[in-house]
């Protein structure tokens, strides 16, 4: 199965195949290189198709940029 689809969550066009089904040709696990969303090609369309992916779960580059750190990286004890 070709990793040709766009990311359902952020519409990024670079999508990578992470794993393929041990039974050949059944499914692939894909991952978006921008938002890191990961999905299996046989999941319901609401999780795999951009046009059906729910608005409330979508993510934009701005969302990623603005995401807070958990936990915050603390200052170094002994700055070099």
């Amino acid at each position, binding site marked *: 199965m070709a990793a040709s689809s766009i990311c359902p*969550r952020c519409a990024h066009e670079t999508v990578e195949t*992470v*794993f393929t*089904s*041990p*039974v050949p040709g*059944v*499914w692939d*696990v894909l*991952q978006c290189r921008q*938002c*890191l*969303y*990961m*999905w*299996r090609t*046989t*999941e*319901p369309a*609401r*999780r795999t198709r951009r046009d059906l992916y*729910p608005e*409330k*779960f979508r*993510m934009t580059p701005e*969302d*990623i940029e603005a*995401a*807070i*750190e*958990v*936990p915050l*990286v*603390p*200052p*170094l*004890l*002994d700055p*070099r």
Partner: protein
Amino acid sequence: MPYDDLRSFLETLDKEGQLLRVTDEVMPEPDIAAAANAAPRLGDAAPALYFDNVKGFTDARIAMNVHGSWANHALALGLPKETGTKEQVAEFIRRWADFPVRPEWRDNPPWGRNTMDGDEVDIFRVLPLIRLNDGDGGFYIDKAAVVSRDPGDPQNFGSQNVGIYRVEVKGKRRLALQPVPMHDIAQHLRKAEERGEDLPVALALGNDPVISIVASTPMKYDENEYEMAGALRGAPAPITRAPLTGLPVPWGSEVVVEGVIEGRRREIEGPFGEFTGHYSGGRKMTVIRIDRISYRTEPVFEHLYLGMPWTEIDYLMGPNTCVPIYQQLKQDFPEVQAVNAMFTHGLVVIVSTKKRYGGFAKAVGMRVLTTPHGLGYAATVIVVDEDVDPFNLPQVMWALSTKMNPAGDLIRIPNMPVMELAPQADAPGIVDKLIIDATTPTGSDRRGNFSNQVKDLPETGEWLTRLHQLAARR
């Protein structure tokens, strides 16, 4: 007989009619999560689920809902499966008194037979990973016992930590982990990051059922989870050293993943449907690099569905949240009778207590807010009289409906700490907290018109036993 691994517990569940094997072919998504979502709705004796015919996989074994009912929780503690909730909590309290029980070091763990190292690591080849909820950012591991040690005090066995945290799979050898600031691993990570170091971690998956219970118990920083497992099991917990990191891990696990949380690095993670019944994320979270995976031949992937409560996680961390709060209250207030902190890991806590004098119940409620776990949870505390069973919600509702006068019984304390996943907080981490005094005023507190309360007839207890016997003979 305590269980030394998941497999022996699954055998017991099977014998007790508490393991449902789904032999028909299922889709990895949405079937397995949807079945585990549905399973607890079968009631107090809902079974665990076992899948081994999953489309596209040749070698998948997935166990879900292992702790997901009162019957299964009782069996995990070695109690008869009919044991009631309140009795399970009482037994938990009795066994806690035996803490600490030193673990037993063993050699040759069964998960030592197969390994992947360095660049050959591919977690997808070991675990049949699946998505749980629609909005999850990917495949999660949410029932692994994550082991870490204090980088400033590495030899201190007490401050080594075993906890369950949400872990997202980001790649063949890359994971994300959420260290909630109130949890011990966050303290370990902060110390490592202040030094500019990575934090070594080991993730043990597929464990004996008591390991999962202690790993989700709110224990103090210097209390060791394996020593608590020994107390709960009534026998030392079998552990061994993880081969790469040297961290102490369960001897009986199915899979042990070792690596490091990469110091001072954060990357987009989530969202993930959390134990609050709400999604949280995406936020920039820590990154784990996997350096080694050790696994049993034909490993069983034990996984946990969580969603709108109640699901398995509420059983897993229900009783074990009640016990430490009860112990800590009891130290100062022996009048406390029972604590029910089973709702969303103690965001609501119900306490029954005798009263020393007027206003006493409110003081007990305030003490709940300052217990170590109450600080980050306990958004609402309900205090009831000693004759109200806090595990009997109709009785609690009776207390609320007749004993509580909002004029004097609601105490609202502004801007208190709460864990950041609590959805009701305006600013994450800060919330107003509420104490509801639903006890009968006493002593110099003369509010209300309570006259005399109707008490159970003295003969009712005997009749209850007799009716049970009669009903059983029908």
